[in-house]
């Protein structure tokens, strides 16, 4: 099942500047994709078009061979989940369990079905022991897990997270990434809107860079960070592990610190 944008152009006002120009991109099942670029480059606009919060001025959005350009956000919520940068925008129920059950209730599922789905979603996000807690009093990381559980409970095939790691400590970040990997293994496609190049390089199977209103790059982290100076011109910083890897003999590409340590150990042993 493919989700794709075909030749999409977009501007917020009829006479305003183009935010996106002829963007074509598609997402495959089970991918963990980083969508990145400078602030204001149009990353969030792409995700808003995917979710149906904005309609393209030209071009189309397709899912599973169907043209869904005119479907609104509520219709697309059956297969696309969106975790906002501030997840408490959507939280108002007295317990985590009821919060997660809100989406399936909107879908008109019966009570037995809802309870089974919610239990499964809470288990998948490691929130089973917090189901009776008040969602708004949780930490930011846990609120995000509640929002992800809400998306899982709606049987989302695609999960979009807007800046999910901002304001999180190292442990919360690690837990979140582990959770996202496990969701990808189950076949969910995860799209991260992020400036965190360590996560993009170390954890994402694909990076899409948005610059000058277009898709400037679409490929692996290794291909992106092997390009000399290009990432900097798009407002991206090199991950520490990549920079350190370049200092070793043979300039190996190190997507994360663990890979760098392995390369370093090899070099040390050879010496």
């Amino acid at each position: 099942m493919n989700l794709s944008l075909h030749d999409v152009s977009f501007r917020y006002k009829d006479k305003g500047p183009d935010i996106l120009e002829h963007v074509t991109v598609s997402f495959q099942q089970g991918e963990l994709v980083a969508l990145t670029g400078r602030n204001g480059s149009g990353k969030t606009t792409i995700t808003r078009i995917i979710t149906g919060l904005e309609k393209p001025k030209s071009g189309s959005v397709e899912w599973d061979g169907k043209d869904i350009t005119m479907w609104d956000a509520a219709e697309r919520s059956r297969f696309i989940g969106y975790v906002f940068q501030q997840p408490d925008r959507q939280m108002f129920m007295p317990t985590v369990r009821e919060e997660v059950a809100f989406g399936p209730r909107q879908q008109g599922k019966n009570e037995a079905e809802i309870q089974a789905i919610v239990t499964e979603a809470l288990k998948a996000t490691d929130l089973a022991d917090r189901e009776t807690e008040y969602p708004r009093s949780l930490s930011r990381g846990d609120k995000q897990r509640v929002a992800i559980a809400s998306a899982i409970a709606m049987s989302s095939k695609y999960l979009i997270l807007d800046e999910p790691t901002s304001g999180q400590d190292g442990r919360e970040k690690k837990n979140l990434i582990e959770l996202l990997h496990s969701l990808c293994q189950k076949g969910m496609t995860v799209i991260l809107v992020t400036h965190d190049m360590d996560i993009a390089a170390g954890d994402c199977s694909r990076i899409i860079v948005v610059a000058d209103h277009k898709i400037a790059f679409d490929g692996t982290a290794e291909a992106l960070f092997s390009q000399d100076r290009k990432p900097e011109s798009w407002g991206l910083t090199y991950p520490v592990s990549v920079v350190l890897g370049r200092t070793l003999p043979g300039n190996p590409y190190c997507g994360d610190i663990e890979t760098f340590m392995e390369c370093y150990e090899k070099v040390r042993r050879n010496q």
Partner: protein
Amino acid sequence: MSRNVPLTKIIFTLCTAVWALVLHQPLSLLALCFFELMVLALSGQMKKQFRAVFILSGFAAFLGAVQYAGGGTLDSAYTAGLRMMDMTLMFLFLLGTTRLQDLTASMVKQLKIPYEYAFMFTASLRFVPDFLEENRAVAEAQACRGLVIKGNIFKKISRYLAVVQPLMLRSLARSESMALSLELRGFGGKHRTFMESVAPGKSDYLVMIFCAAVTAGVIALRFFYQA
């Protein structure tokens, strides 16, 4: 007039409200309404405030209809609707052409309203656009969870609660952090000063004289000609 100091605009706005209360013939109230619309147009506010004027017109029509349905005459219905329009239109001009910090300064320095109350008033006005933006964001977040606000009015209201509840909770949290932020920056100190100069000039005194003359004229018209 949009360049006048806030005190002048406040006096002008209050005067138009007095004129609207004194006049009681639909034709005089209609004339006042045209005058106020002209002020809005000449100050360049008509385009910006068009939506608000449109909503006010709807509300005036509703008020007139209620008056008529409650046993009033057609004349009294026109009067109720037009009076409401006349009393509120100039507030759009006042708020659209005055910086909120100037308004606060004027309320405190010239009208001698305690700073806390003046600040509360202008802060609540400042939060209206933020509140609308937050409302949009929460509605979008809930739409992404499958919320559709459709159906009859009761269904719409009950579904809209899913937007209103998080909106209220977030607004409360926000007011708490704002209170903290104000305290941390010495809000309520006795020796507060204002950067803004809101002292009236020549043109302000001219407008004030105009307001006083028209108010006297309107009262005379009412008593001698039943306007």
